[in-house]
């Protein structure tokens, strides 16, 4: 259910990522070249980079942000603009443009005005740092094809790109052409493969790892570990100045070759020269100057990045970007399109569209932005539903079910009678109220009354999906298969009885001619009863997200971990739908105006009616 950020495995993923930018977009959008309106949350600034023209680029979990010379946000670019993922981890200036390291690789971009052009793209594991070796050969800069590009990847180690060939610095692999779909070593759990930054200093190549210390390779020499840092050190960044190569890590600040120096700051994510002084930034302890030098710094806490260039400095935090020009710090004026990037649920009552974040609560669309709904609930939202009678918003969270209407809120937990306070799924009932699936069974909740499905004797495990069919039966999709409960009659359908190929049911969609069951790994199955027995027909697809099946007229839409799909409910013929800013798609929702929302784990996109296939 997490965003798959690598070009592996499934065919449609390769099509989306390995094609040229224009083709990828045209495939995703059908025949239209129009782009959707993208809503992401501009948080978690892992990188920032001042540009020569006074602008600042910032890499966030919601995309690449362009800030103008007045510290105002100009544009946000995402995966839909052919960046290597929406989540941006690193930025590096080069003579040809800016290299952008994202969760799906690296790309060389240029910005002309507010237009982004991707000149080159390399698909890898998430790129946490980059170094472009543009050392002079003789009197001239090295030609483009001879430059070495070093990619610090999380999972594939340190990679070296030379021309069209990519190789592993840390391994013995021979150079492979980039055109080959097989990438260097598969994602590894080894700490040495989690490279967090790379730099050249004094003629040697240095790189940091998260859990394997500091490594280097001098020209012509083998790779070796710098023993001044421990072999299990978690180090996050490198920054060079005239005096040293600074290393920032969990234990503090150090220097290559000298190890960790005394530092009273922990969880350091980076350092840079600001106003002539070395400043380190910490995730938890803000920004502080080295050796208590006096530097004016903003009061911060969770800082993720710092950079200085062109006389300008920038600091990226959990939810802000700060820029220092001419000695004073100012907060960049940003406007997020949504309070959350990881969207668990999306629902609309025709006039209002609500969004539930994986861990950011509920927000509502106002104008062209989603704004948080100010209610005191658990921010871990699993599902949303609109009451069919009074229009109340039902919110399923990890610690209870909430009913919100006109600023009043009711909470239902185990003490109220729910089988469990961990509520995972919802289905609005025609008579009002909801059918709620929890971690220990399901219940009908209406007003103040709760009726447990199965009288509390039904042991189901987690109920990830619920639905009510026309005959009044309640359907519970669980990790142990599917249950049909009607009165006291309970029927179980699953792998053992042959109806499903995976007992982990994630989504249900009821149609006149059957029940459509979306499972975690086993795709979609249609169940039909002929009066005597139930017949199951496998319809393919797979990795259905919770609540990710819906009928829209005669079209069956599936929100999967590899994008939104459209099927006919008859056979295994599925087509890609519009993409969102992330691949892992959690909801596909036509709104009342003929537009379509595509919610993903990296934000959401709204496609105007003219873009629909």
């Amino acid at each position, binding site marked *: 259910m997490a965003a798959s950020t690598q070009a592996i495995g499934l065919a449609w993923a390769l099509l989306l990522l390995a094609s040229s930018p224009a083709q990828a977009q045209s495939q995703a959008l059908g025949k239209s070249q129009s782009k959707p309106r993208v809503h992401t949350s501009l948080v978690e600034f892992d990188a920032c980079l001042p540009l020569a023209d006074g602008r600042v680029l910032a890499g966030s979990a919601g995309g690449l942000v362009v800030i103008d010379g007045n510290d105002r946000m100009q544009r946000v670019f995402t995966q839909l603009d052919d960046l290597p993922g929406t989540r941006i981890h690193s930025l590096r200036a080069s003579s040809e443009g800016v290299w952008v390291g994202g969760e799906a690789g690296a790309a060389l971009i240029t910005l002309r005005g507010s237009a982004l052009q991707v000149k080159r793209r390399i698909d890898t594991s998430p790129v946490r740092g980059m170094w472009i070796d543009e050392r002079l050969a003789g009197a001239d800069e090295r030609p483009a094809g001879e430059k070495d590009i070093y990619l610090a990847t999380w999972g594939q180690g340190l990679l070296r790109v030379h021309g069209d060939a990519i190789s592993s610095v840390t391994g013995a692999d021979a150079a492979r052409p980039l055109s080959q779909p097989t990438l260097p070593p598969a994602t590894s759990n080894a700490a040495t493969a*989690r490279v*967090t930054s790379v730099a050249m200093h004094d003629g040697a190549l240095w790189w940091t790892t998260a859990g394997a210390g500091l490594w280097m390779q001098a020209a012509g020499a083998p790779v070796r570990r710098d023993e001044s840092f421990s072999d299990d050190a978690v180090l996050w960044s490198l920054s060079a100045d005239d005096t040293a190569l600074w290393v920032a890590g969990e234990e503090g600040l150090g220097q290559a070759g000298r190890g960790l120096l005394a530092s009273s700051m922990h969880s350091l994510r980076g350092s840079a020269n600001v106003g002539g002084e070395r400043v380190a930034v910490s995730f938890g302890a803000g920004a502080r100057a080295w050796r208590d030098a006096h530097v004016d710094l903003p009061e911060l806490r969770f800082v993720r990045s710092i950079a200085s260039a062109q006389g300008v400095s920038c600091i990226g935090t959990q939810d802000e970007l700060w820029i220092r020009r001419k000695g004073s710090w100012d907060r960049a004026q940003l406007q997020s399109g949504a309070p959350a990037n990881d969207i668990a649920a999306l629902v609309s009552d025709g006039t209002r569209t609500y969004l539930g974040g994986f861990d950011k609560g509920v927000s509502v669309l106002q104008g062209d932005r989603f704004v948080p709904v100010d209610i005191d609930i658990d921010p871990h939202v699993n599902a949303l539903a609109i009451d069919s009678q009074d229009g109340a918003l039902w919110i399923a969270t990890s610690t209870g079910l909430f009913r919100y209407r006109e600023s009043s809120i009711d909470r239902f937990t185990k003490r109220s009678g729910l089988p469990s306070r961990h509520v995972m799924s919802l289905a609005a009932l025609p008579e009002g109220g909801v059918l709620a699936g929890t971690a220990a069974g399901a219940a009908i909740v209406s007003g103040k009354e709760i009726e447990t499905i199965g009288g509390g004797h039904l042991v189901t495990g987690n109920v990830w999906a619920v639905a009510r069919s026309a005959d009044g039966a309640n359907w519970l999709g669980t990790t142990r298969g599917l249950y049909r409960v009607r009165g006291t009659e309970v029927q179980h359908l699953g792998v053992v009885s042959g109806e499903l190929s995976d007992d982990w049911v994630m989504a249900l969609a009821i149609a006149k001619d059957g029940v459509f069951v979306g499972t975690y790994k086993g795709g979609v199955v249609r169940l039909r009863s002929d009066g005597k027995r139930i017949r199951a027909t496998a319809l393919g697809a797979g*990795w259905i997200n919770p609540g990710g099946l819906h009928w829209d007229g005669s079209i069956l839409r599936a929100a999967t971990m590899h994008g939104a799909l459209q099927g006919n409910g008859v056979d295994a013929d599925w087509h890609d739908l519009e993409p969102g800013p992330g691949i892992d798609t959690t909801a596909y929702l036509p709104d009342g105006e003929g537009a379509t929302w595509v919610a993903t784990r990296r934000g959401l996109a709204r496609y105007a009616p003219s873009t629909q296939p």
Partner: protein
Amino acid sequence: MTSILKTPSITLLGFALAMGTSACGSSSRERARGASTQGLTMSVDHLAEALVWESGDPVQVRVAGKWMALSKPIAGVSELRSRGRGGVVRVGETTLWLRGESHVRVGSDAAGKLVVDLIRGEARVRSRKDDSLRVGQEQGPGRDFLLSHRGQRTRSVSTESQPQHALWSMELSRPVEARGIGRLDTKEGEVAVPLELRKLNISVHLDGGMALTEVEHVFYNDSDKVLEGSFRFPAPDGVSVTGLAMEINNRLVEGEFVERMKARQVYEQIVDQMQDPALLEWQQGGWFKLRVFPIEAHSEKRVVLRYQAPLQESLEGYEYRYLATPPEGSQVGLFELRIDDKLVTHKEGLRSAEDVVVPVPASALPRVAAEERKDYSYRALTVDADWWREEYSRMAVANAPVHRRVVLALDSSRSALENRELSLELLGLVLGELEPGDSFALFAHDIAVREAFMGFQPASKANVERALGFYRDLELDGASDLGATMQYAAKLSEGRDDVSVIYIGDGTPSWGLTQSAALHEASEALGKSPLFAAILGRGASTRLWSALTGERGGTIVRPHTGLQAEQMAFFLARAAQLPRLEEAALVPVDGVDIFPDAPRTLFEGESMTVLVRAPQGKMPGSLVLAGRIGKTRLRQSVALDQGVVAAQSVAQRFASMAIARMEDDKAPLEEIVAMSREFGVQSKHTSLLVLESEEAYRQHQIARKEAEEQRLSANAPQVSGGDLDNLGGQEASLSPNNIQPGDPEVRIPAPADARSVVLVFPFGETKIAHFDEEDQTWIARFLISPDTADGQYWVRVHIEHSDGRLEEMRLPYTVDTSAPNVSVKLVKKPGGRVQIQVQELGELRDAIRVEVHMPWGQSERLYAKGDGFFRRLLRTPRGIGSTIAVRVVVTDEALNQRVLELELPIEAQ
């Protein structure tokens, strides 16, 4: 010769056991260094000066024949008696500490000395003036004495000679802390409301020098609602938990030791499905916490906790002590304490502290406790140095300097932040024990050294203040270079035996010399200067410091409360004058495991608990205790085959020490868990889990250790002699932790007022947890992408506490996308039935569910029988052939499924 000594019965009054020497050798405590008293003569049978109450519980005084409470200064006191914990009083320049239930007569003799005649209990008396006290018929000079009258006579000793027996007096000057009584809090809104504690029953069984204790709490819910509660119990220091039971549906259900993460996972899995799981986990500071649900309306809830602890040494041998301090404003309906089934204490409506002290003479304990198990023999014994020997006494006459010289080495590295306050308190206490004429040198160290002063300074008030100010102003940062610390200390002490070196810090070397051997070598520079270490925090190796201090004539203490710091400072102030056997260690024997396994210093009056394990039939008849007094090396034989008595707890005591060593050596987790489960001793990596039924244990594949039978046969939990170091039990959990790619939830039990809880995930993401009020834990969710490779991963958790202290922990989880492999067979059974048997293959057996579908349409779930084996009996329809087509679906903990379509022959039984 072997003699069997029966455990004596102990009655409430009279303490009728006679003192005497053991049949098989004497102990140092029998050799009188003090004097006996009986009815001291007084010229004036009351105090002329006014008596003032200072601290502790109220004291009663007798004036002109009448008893009254000492509520204001009063003259003419002839007798005092104490209740509860005891109290502290002062008359003129003399301070008198009375332990609970003690009774003294006071007056003065013809020479004008203050006379203190102990009638019952224990007391300590100290005067600022020399030679102004009379506490015994033939006492030596001095102004600080300990008295004990638990038998027929009063014993008195100089406190300086046996300071370890004065530690109880320091408690009386401190505020009452919660001890010995648990509470069960439920929540009403935001407020924690304690339930009524109707009964507190303590049952103790004395077994070979250990007290096997069972504490039963009975709470009552007098509301109309079903409640959920949190039970917390302040465990006494040095205990080892051996059992937990909880009342479920009117039945006492025994808990089981389970690997810590699995216990938490099982608990989380079922807490919303079942009603009555209970999970006992350590928390920091020696508190146990247990979640309890449901507590039915108008019903009692019983919680039983079992632990074991060594008997405490006392002036007259040993004692069992239980201090029960009700939380403020509450009471215990009925408090009873029994020792070996004899009622010792019975109190109704207990509102104030009750300090139950029951003496146990040394003669009442076996010399050697023995236990035989299948493959091994175990022995436990207490070893004293032969101080009764003339050569020991002659050599051990301490060249006690008139004035003390102390070098204090303070850890100023980053890791000292965590215990900064306690370090400061300890420093103040140590300096406070210095007297005019004493001097000290003080330096702080991390990777560099900073001196507070140049060299030694007199222990004046001004210098002490400067020293404390120096520490307060230190910025604690950098790594710890212990090698350099030792060298610097050696430079100051010049290796002289009249200079003591005291290290205060977390003891973990992280710079320069870090290997044990190198540190031992570095410590040799200290020469004859004894090295004492106060190790604060959880990280340091006890073994390393035991050896370092043991080789240097000092000792290691791990205080974690202010009281312990005070006790340590008190002891340190006197330790230099005490005769001691340095580098005391048992000579290794091939094939025999012996604890302790590191040399230590054995002060006179101290004894060493020794645990031995040998293969059956290979137990040696004796061991050799070797050591050094001054330059002279000494050896003494320690018999293992004399005075042997069978006991039930020796193997567990051994296991407890073995586990502590394994944890120190960072042995594989599985080995530690296996030993913990095998011997029923809690470790850092196991928790006690109570499930509501045997079926539930089977379902979650938790093998039962037949705890019920063991308990019944043993009449008490088993014993461990080890002192589990502070486990620092802030344990986090991750649910589920054996998972497919998905969205697990992390719960971190950090304090509600922590500034932040940050999680760094192995896939590079960092999340900030949020605090869940209801659960009182910090929670974060994260996603695992489907392309994550199988394997174990670690989440790093950073907790920033409200005081700025940082704590880091790591939480493992396993990504498992592999379905289980199984073998299946059908076995014919009588009565037209067939049994389907499924056995999971491979080392990892994590299948949790096996279902079968039979060709006649029947689908069933098989019963889990443990160790990956499932089975079920099925009735077959007539006419079934000799081969059956079966669909088998096996699901593991991570919900991976293996589906097998098989044609199976029906095998004969």
